[in-house]
Structure formats: structure tokens, C-alpha cells
């Protein structure tokens, strides 16, 4: 009897598997609309655009729901729906839809960068090259800038459009720390004097990984610069100083380095409760909203490390099976408009930097930009620009992730 059931299960599963592979022909994907822009705008009118994005930040959500969505409705009669979902999950959703041959999806715009873009591009989950069709992209974005060409080592080819530029900074509680450590030597000294008050997120986390990329810059800074080599294999034998310092601070970190926060939000939580005195992350203006919401103590200040501050760009893109590519393009174009980018910089909303060239902006927007007070915890544009470091190829992220467990935690 047992055998019969097993046989039944097997037959049934094979049947299901067969169903699956039958539908596996090349899916009929949507195409990048090739009409004139006016026609695209007309087509998009009255439609609904579904935006899938990471939803873990109140300021960002506020900006989309309270500013972008109503304006888009008003200007283009487009209904923008925000769906909070972790980036790797909607990329996975698209991958599943691709496999199942589902050519009419549910997602029109996705918010991605770096490795997610690389995966999406390599697995043909994106609609195609659309960025150069957007009037605002053509008009206000400097096409010579590297962030329009390459996203952490992956050629963009117009398949995603830049949305925001952020830089990596550190935050600390100025009531507890007078002179924050700005390089590894100072940090080593600091953690020995104040055990348990510093830590960084597990490098699986994007921000935790970015902290280690700064340390990597500091420990191996040489010519040619790290970012010009897209393959970290040359680090073999050159990485001793890097791991040695990380190992040295490890026992003096939070929880004696036996465990690390799994995510940036966990580190923020520890900082908020005063368990640690530092937090970190991309978006130099992130602290403003968090102080206002009472998450960070009011005595929070920010600083950049001596080695510099990695600048990272994030993008908007359209999936291969978007049911409304016209609406998606109009919405993305709007989000790259001077007024939308300026509103995004407002610290009560999101607060992050714009991707547009300031001297190409209309005069009145330029004036507003100069008058804009980003908040006391945000470093000056000059200081941030001087500290600017280019982002590394995404292969370095994997390299750090892969070796960190062996080199730092398990020893």
C-alpha cells in the first residue's frame, strides 16, 4: 500500500512538473514604448502605476504617499500605488513570473541598485533601455557622470534611471562621545577604552558591508584605486592588514563581537536604546527625520571617516512584464523632475541628495536649493564632496561577505 501511495505521489508530481515546463516558452514581454513623448504621456493618462519598493523608512514612505502620489494625480492623472516589499523579494517575484511565462505582471516600477540590478539585468527581468527617452533625464542629468553608465560595475545601458545620490556617514551621540574615532587606529583605541559601545551590521546587510568597504579602502588604498579593478581576486595576500584590524576590534565590540546586528535597523535600535553609541549608513540626511521622530537622541551628530565617504546611487526601473510601461515612464520622468527632486531633499520628507546637475536647473529651483536647510546633523555639501569616494564593484560585496565569517567571526 505504501508503495502505491509513493507511486501516486511521483506520478502526480511529474504531471505537475510537466505542466510547468510546458508553459516555459519564451514569454512575450512588453516592449519599451517607442512613440513620441507626448503620445506616451497621453497613453498614460488615467492609468494606475504600481511601485514596488523597500518600505522600511517612514520618511521615504511619506514622500511617496504624501507628495509624489498626489502630484502625479494632479499633473498626469496617474494613480500611484506604493507596495512595500523587500528588494530581493520582488526581484524573486519577477524571476518566478519569468519562469512561469507570465507576461502580464503586477509591477510597473521597481526601486533597485547594485547587485539587485545585476541579477535583474542578467536574468532579463527588465523591460529594456528607456532612460534616454525621459525628457528630464536628458535635460537635467549629466550624462558624463559615472552613475549614469555603471551601477557598481554593471553596465546600465539605460535600463534603470537614477533617482537619488547618497553618501555614507557615521552618526554618534555627542553627549557620550566627544571625539569620535575617524580611522582604524583611533577606532582600535576607542573600543578598547569603551568596550561594547561600537559595532557594525553583519556584512550581509548592505550598510554593514559598506562600512567594511570603507575599512577596505583605508587598509588597501593604493594605485590603481580599488574601484578600477572589478575583480577582488588581487586582494589575496594583500588583505592581511584589513582582516587583522577587524579581528583586533572584534572582542571589544557590542556583545564582545560574538554576534553582530543582522540589519541596519537593528543597529539603529541599539543606538536608539543607548546600547551602542554609534550608527551608520547611506543617506547623509537620514538622521534628521529619526531625531524628529524621537528615535535618535537629539544630541546625535554625523561625521565622515578620514578615508572618505562612498557615494551610492539608487535607481528606478521597469520590469519586463509591466502592464503599464507608459505610465511607469511618465511616473519615473516625474520623479526625476526638478521639483520632485527638490521636495525629496526636504528633511521632513526623505532628505536625500538629488541626481540632477544643479547648474542646469531652472533659476527659481536653484534659489530654493540654495535656501534649503537640510538640518543641523547634515554635513556641508563641500565637506561631503571632498570626502567623496567612488562605489566599488558589487563583486567586492560578495568577497567581503564570503570571507568575513571565516576571518572575523569564526576565529
Amino acid at each position, binding site marked *: 500500500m505504501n508503495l502505491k501511495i509513493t507511486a501516486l505521489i511521483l506520478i502526480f508530481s511529474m504531471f505537475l512538473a510537466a505542466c510547468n515546463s510546458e508553459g516555459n516558452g519564451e514569454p512575450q514581454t512588453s516592449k519599451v514604448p517607442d512613440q513620441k513623448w507626448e503620445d506616451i504621456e497621453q497613453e498614460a493618462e488615467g492609468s494606475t502605476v504600481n511601485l514596488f519598493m523597500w518600505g522600511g523608512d517612514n520618511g521615504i514612505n511619506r514622500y511617496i504617499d504624501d507628495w509624489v502620489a498626489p502630484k502625479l494625480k494632479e499633473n498626469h492623472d496617474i494613480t500611484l500605488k506604493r507596495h512595500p516589499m523587500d528588494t530581493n523579494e520582488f526581484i524573486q517575484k519577477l524571476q518566478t513570473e519569468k519562469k512561469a511565462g507570465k507576461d502580464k505582471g503586477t509591477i510597473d516600477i521597481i526601486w533597485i541598485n547594485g547587485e539587485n540590478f*545585476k541579477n535583474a539585468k542578467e536574468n532579463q527581468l527588465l523591460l529594456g533601455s528607456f532612460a534616454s527617452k525621459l525628457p528630464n533625464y536628458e535635460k537635467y542629468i549629466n550624462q558624463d557622470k559615472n552613475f549614469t553608465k555603471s551601477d557598481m560595475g554593471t553596465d546600465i545601458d539605460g535600463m534603470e534611471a537614477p533617482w537619488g545620490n547618497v553618501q555614507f556617514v557615521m552618526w554618534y551621540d555627542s553627549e557620550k562621545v566627544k571625539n569620535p574615532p575617524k580611522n582604524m587606529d583611533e577606532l582600535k583605541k576607542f573600543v578598547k577604552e569603551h568596550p561594547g559601545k561600537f559595532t557594525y551590521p553583519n556584512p550581509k546587510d548592505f550598510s554593514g558591508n559598506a562600512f567594511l568597504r570603507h575599512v577596505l579602502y583605508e587598509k588597501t588604498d593604493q594605485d590603481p584605486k580599488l574601484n578600477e579593478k572589478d575583480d577582488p581576486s588581487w586582494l589575496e595576500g594583500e588583505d592581511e592588514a584589513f582582516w587583522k584590524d577587524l579581528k583586533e576590534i572584534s572582542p571589544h565590540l557590542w556583545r564582545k563581537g560574538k554576534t553582530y546586528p543582522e540589519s541596519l535597523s537593528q543597529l539603529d535600535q541599539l543606538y536608539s536604546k543607548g546600547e551602542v553609541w554609534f550608527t551608520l549608513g547611506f543617506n547623509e540626511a537620514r538622521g534628521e527625520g529619526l531625531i524628529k521622530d524621537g528615535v535618535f537622541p537629539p544630541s546625535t551628530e554625523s561625521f565622515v571617516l578620514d578615508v572618505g565617504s562612498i557615494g551610492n546611487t539608487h535607481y528606478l526601473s521597469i520590469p519586463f512584464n509591466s502592464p503599464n510601461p507608459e505610465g511607469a515612464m511618465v511616473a519615473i520622468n516625474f520623479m526625476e523632475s526638478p521639483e520632485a527632486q527638490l521636495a525629496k531633499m526636504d528633511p521632513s520628507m526623505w532628505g536625500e541628495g538629488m541626481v540632477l546637475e544643479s547648474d542646469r536647473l531652472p533659476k527659481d529651483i536653484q534659489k530654493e536649493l540654495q535656501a534649503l536647510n537640510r538640518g543641523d546633523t547634515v554635513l556641508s555639501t563641500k565637506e561631503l564632496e571632498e570626502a567623496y569616494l567612488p562605489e566599488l564593484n558589487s563583486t567586492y560585496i560578495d568577497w567581503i561577505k564570503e570571507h568575513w565569517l571565516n576571518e572575523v567571526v569564526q576565529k
Partner: protein
Amino acid sequence: MKLYKNKRILPYLQIAPAFLLIVGLLGYGVFNGILESLQVDFSWTVEAYQTLFGNSAFWTSLWYTLYITFVSTMIALLVGLCLTHFLYPYLVKDRWKAVIWVPMLFPHFAAGYLIVLLFSDSGWISGLLFQSGAISQLSDFPNLVNDTNGLGIIMTYVWKEIPFVVLMLLPVYVQMDERLKDVVLTLGGKKHDEFLTAQWPYLWPTIIEIAIILFAFIFAAFEVPYLLGVTFPQMTPVLAFDWFFDGNWDQRPVAFASMVVVTAIIVMLTIAVYSSTQKYRHRLMKGS
């Protein structure tokens, strides 16, 4: 003849809806997982399993998972059994049942978070101790959450599963023949003989069943270790999740392979236990 045939087929028909649901959803998932673990770039290979078995992090994780599962299951069973054994006259009353049932109302994730709120370094208990002067610094409080021994995970599971153990054992106690206890006493048995000879034979098949359910559940669970675990070692499901959702998609077959191994362990354990106790269960059912 026809009747005989129908009688044979009828049970199969009756079980068909449940069977289809389980095989259709679960079976298909497992089947697909196995497929994915055996395919790299559309060609068949056992490469993923080779990588997996050669990975020391996986072995550490597997032992760690076994340890946490075993300890949680044992404690939950023991406490649940004691509670039912000594309190069952009360527990059959709705009022007391409700008290024991409370932890069942919480999803596992909420239970895990409750443990964080209570037992973390900056949690309520550490705060209370600090206020009362028992510890001089919040960080002097022992690490009970996100600790390498998995205490937080174990606490969550014990707290959540005790009511389940009670729920499963109560009917056994209710159905037990009270007169057997009297027989033991009349024949000169002691209190513990009463338990061992009159009650244990009825209890242990159910206890083993509960143990298997708990084992399978904790062994393959994700959310609690994700919330309360440490960077290293990780429980296997968390490790698999990380591999699956890692930016580097080459790791995906390995993630599937690790879950196939977990499933295989559970299935083998269940088969082993059931086949070795089947005879006894049969006799017990017929005898009563």
C-alpha cells in the same frame, strides 16, 4: 464483489481532497526544491550537495540546529507533561484551560519579540534589576537573547510549545481508566508505580507523536531563529534563507540542497519512529 471493491476504494476517495491538497501544494514544493537543488544552469548535477557537505558552516549549523531542537523539545515535553499530570483535574475546566492556552494566541514571531522585550540587555527585566540596584550597568545583565547558546530561541519555543503539549496530552488523561490506578494501589504499588504502570503505557505513544511534531516544527522553523539568533552559528533554515536571498544567485542550488537535507532528516526520523512503534500503537488501540 462490487461491494468489496467499493469498500476498498471508498477510503481512498474520502481521503482524496486532503491528499490532493497536501501533495499538490506541499509535495509539489518539495519536488520543485529537489529539482532546483539538482540543477545548475539547466543541467543535472550534484554539485550543490558537494559544496554543501564540504561547507563547515553548514555542519556547524546542522549540529546547532539539532541541539536547539532537541533541548527545546525535551523541556517543552517535560514541563508540559508535569503540568498535565499534576493539574489535569483543574485543566479540564475552561477557566484554567484558558490560562494555559494564552501563549497559543501569539504567533511565534510575536513570542520571539516578547522575549526580546523581556530579556535583552535593555529589556524590562534588566531594567528592573538595574533600578533595584542588583546590577550596576545594563550591560552586566547576562546575554539571554541573541546569544551563541540559543537560549532566547529555546525560551521562545518552550513558552510557545508547552500549551501544545498540554493540549495533546489532556485527552489522553481524560480517557485514562482511573480504576487502573486503584488496581496498582491495591496490589501494593507506590505512587510512582501508579504513573509507570497505569499511565505511562497510554502516554508514551502520544508523547512520541508530540515529540516528532515539535522536532519537525522547530528543526525547520525560520522566524524565531531569524529574530533571536546570532551571526554565527545560524540555524539551518536561516542559513538557507541567506543563501537563497544572497545577492549572488549562484548560491541558490546550495540553499535548496540544504533544505532538502533538512526535509530528509525529518522524514527519515518520522519513518523510523513510526515504524518502530506502530505495532505497539495497534495493540493499544485494539485493546482499549
